[in-house]
């Protein structure tokens, strides 16, 4: 194209194919060639766990598509109406317009029910996907520099997703979701000093009032999705900009990225995957009914169904509230509703712990380098154990959120489950931490063993003196490399406390804490030293491989 500048443009244009001419036109306005230069054949590493993030993205897109459809029929109003639609069992029942229009979507709009179901199923999968995706990033250490900010974006998406889901399933104003809203209002009331004010302002007066559906509606379809869309875009731009992490292996280093090019392989796979996810969700929505609001009935603050359960991602908050003892302190004419407020605070703290983890870990390691090669979870035992401890706490509380279901299905007493959850909340993570760390060390030991003595081949050999031994095959250099490439940190020491002039230096508390934590992370008994080349050679030369 170097002669285009001199040759008359018209002459060229006549010959170029239509596609190129369109691209030229766009390039002249948007500079698309420069943009595509670095990106069209951008390399993406392949691993099944990298698809988790894609599931989140695709379900988010599906949610937006189906959500926009729902807005065409849904009436976000709490005006009371008498139902006279086609669903016979509800004839003449008083209900809000929101509930009535959800019935209409389900029974009078052809395909409306399907879209409602897809919207709800996609929401559940969206949040589950984010949860698992977050775990993948955590356990492989993909949150390390330079990706800490992207970790925060992802974390925010998860939290906002929870609230978007909650405001969404509150919209139909049915008995189940109304009960959840009441729960939320009760929890808000427990906040010291400002609780009653927040509640009055959120509900436009006393509960339930006539405003919350309309307010939740604008939060649900505009405010939160808008923020989330921005975050998703930022998240993806950063993924592109940082380039994807990769698992260690032959030819994969901190300075390269190995995989398939965006065009065509990744485009086809990722694009195809969108349709796979959409297809599966559509099938699930066709087969499994979710949130059949017509069997639940419209909301009335003086009525309730049994077995009231929120969507799964709220089960964690639900569990905390259920197992907390009902502490209430009355002092100087005020009430501190600890029984509800503490769970509220713990909810924030447990989630917040996830958000700040990357910063804590990098402070402890003092590592300021970029990391693009992923850790195998076993090679970071303390981190892995902390992650499993966190999940254990989350899951035990989730169990608590369904304590009545467990009790009725397994004929247990609620009291027993409550105590199980209370004790488990504290003991479970500790046990999980210890067990996980042991497993990691065991796996490290096995790796070291494999490196030094080879892989068990399953072939039994009989020695001349009659003993049977199993033949060990030496590993290939690829395997040797993969199993030994990881780094092992040494714990940080507190520097000399006396400087060169013999003047004593004060050791700051932070420094001491950091040394302690570092010791806990990387000190004695926290990792199996990886085999050295010398050890390997000695064994290979010494007794050969038996």
């Amino acid at each position, binding site marked *: 194209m170097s002669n285009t500048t001199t040759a008359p443009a018209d002459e060229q244009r006549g010959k170029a194919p239509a596609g190129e001419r369109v691209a030229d036109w766009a390039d002249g306005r948007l500079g698309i060639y420069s943009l595509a230069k670095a990106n069209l054949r951008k390399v993406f590493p392949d691993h099944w766990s990298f698809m988790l993030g894609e599931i989140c993205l695709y379900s988010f897109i599906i949610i937006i598509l189906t959500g926009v459809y729902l807005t065409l029929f849904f009436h976000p109003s709490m005006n009371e109406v008498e139902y006279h639609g086609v669903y016979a069992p509800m004839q003449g029942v008083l209900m809000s317009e929101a509930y009535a229009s959800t019935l209409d979507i389900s029974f009078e709009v*052809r395909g409306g*029910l399907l879209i409602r179901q897809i919207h709800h199923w996609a929401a559940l999968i969206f949040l589950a996907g984010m949860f698992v995706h977050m775990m993948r990033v955590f356990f492989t250490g993909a949150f390390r520099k330079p990706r800490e900010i992207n970790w925060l974006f992802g974390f925010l998406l998860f939290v906002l997703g929870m609230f978007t889901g909650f405001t969404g399933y509150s919209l139909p104003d049915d008995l189940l979701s109304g009960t959840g809203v009441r729960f939320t209002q009760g929890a808000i009331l427990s906040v010291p000093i400002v609780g009653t004010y927040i509640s009055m302002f959120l509900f436009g007066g006393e509960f339930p009032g006539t405003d919350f559906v309309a307010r939740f509606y604008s939060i649900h379809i505009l405010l939160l999705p808008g923020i989330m869309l921005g975050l998703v875009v930022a998240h993806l731009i950063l993924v592109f900009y940082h380039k994807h992490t990769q698992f260690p292996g032959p030819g994969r*280093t901190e300075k390269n990225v190995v995989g398939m090019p965006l065009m065509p392989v990744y485009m086809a796979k990722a694009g195809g995957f969108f349709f796979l996810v959409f297809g599966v969700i559509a099938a699930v929505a066709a087969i499994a009914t979710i949130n059949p609001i017509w069997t639940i009935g419209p909301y009335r603050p003086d009525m309730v169904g049994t077995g009231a359960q929120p969507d799964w991602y709220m089960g964690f908050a639900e569990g905390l509230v259920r197992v907390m003892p009902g502490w209430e302190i009355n002092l100087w004419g005020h009430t501190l509703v600890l029984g509800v407020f503490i769970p509220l605070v713990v909810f924030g703290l447990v989630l917040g712990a996830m958000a700040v983890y990357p910063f804590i870990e990098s402070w402890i*390691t003092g590592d300021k*380098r970029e990391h693009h090669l992923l850790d195998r979870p076993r090679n970071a035992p303390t981190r892995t154990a902390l992650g499993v401890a966190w999940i254990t706490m989350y899951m035990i509380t989730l169990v608590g959120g369904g304590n009545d279901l467990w009790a009725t299905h397994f004929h247990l007493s609620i009291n027993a489950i409550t105590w199980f959850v209370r004790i488990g909340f504290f003991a479970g993570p500790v046990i999980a931490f210890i067990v996980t760390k042991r497993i990691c060390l065991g796996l490290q030991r096995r790796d070291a063993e494999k490196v030094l003595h080879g892989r068990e081949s399953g072939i039994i050999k009989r020695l001349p003196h009659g003993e049977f031994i199993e033949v060990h095959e030496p590993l290939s250099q690829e395997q040797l490399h993969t199993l030994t490439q990881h780094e092992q940190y040494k714990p940080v020491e507190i520097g000399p406390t006396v400087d060169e002039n013999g003047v004593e230096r004060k050791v700051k508390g932070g420094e001491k804490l950091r040394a302690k934590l570092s010791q806990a992370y990387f000190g004695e008994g926290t990792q199996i030293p990886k085999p050295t080349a010398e050890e390997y050679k000695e064994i290979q030369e010494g007794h050969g491989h038996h």
Partner: protein
Amino acid sequence: MSSQENSEENLPTKQDSAHGAVAVADNPFADPGLPPHEARQQDLDDRTAKRSERTVALLFTVSMLATIGFIACFVIFPIEKIVYIWPIGKVSALNFSLGLTLAVALFCIGAGAVHWARTLMSDVEIADDRHPISAEPEVKAKVLNDFKQGAEDSVLGRRKLIRNTMFGALAMVPLSGIVLLRDLGPLPEDKLRHTLWGKGKALVNMNTGEPLRPEDIAVGSLTFAKPEGLEEHDHGFMNEIAKAALMIVRLQPEDIKDKRELDWSHEGIVAFSKICTHVGCPISLYEQQTHHALCPCHQSTFDLSDGARVIFGPAGHALPQLHIGVNDEGYLEALGDFDEPVGPAFWERG
């Protein structure tokens, strides 16, 4: 890498073979580099490749047929038609058929694309270089310099008066936005302390809408009541019933352990707020042997024979009791409002 300069002693040296440095000749663990590409059957044999092509085309064709099926189902099935599908049970024919045809149409596009990518597109792995995210020192120096120049040009540093007033103005202007939120709702005042109950208000059966007589309250059953004059169609019914909902049980007067409860009862009939003191669910279950009322939300359990105190669960205090009696016509009536706020506790409750 500039960002690697400040690594500290405790960090492993990154110069081992794993991290991109040249392999030491006799290091058995050195990185052997990318393994050679292994050809697939499709790369070697044109017949296999042809078969893959046909599979992909078939998947895309099935998708087209499924979309036609979707449209056909939309037209054919009336929305109210219910069919029995094993093993799911009774389902809406329209919902089920639309869902499945849509699912097939979408899934086959995906499956076709992925199969195409896996079998026919080149699967040679390629490597791209990474570049450090942090800027080179010269770039950084230039930016800092530009910034300094810009800051100097703005004279903000010297003209303190401008700076301070500007910050002041910027800090204050969002206040308008906050003030505007004031009318989101009224102030709490004592709204949470009062309900519709008051002296002389008859207890009306929630189901029948008839005023209740003591004879209507049977032993062992839970009766729900609302204050007379509150009707479902009323504006504000929801807000009022959310506080005024009442449950009534009949106990044997000698079973009542709490002195005040006995005083506020009528012939063993006691009336308590139906709204759970935990986070406000309505209580709906009653066990007559034990006199326990249970909230289905988080299983708080209240002993109705003992001042409705909490005997299990996360609720923090007893259910408020309504003082009742009988009026001249023999109907149950309230002798006042609740003497404490109903429902969940809050800071001003005291």
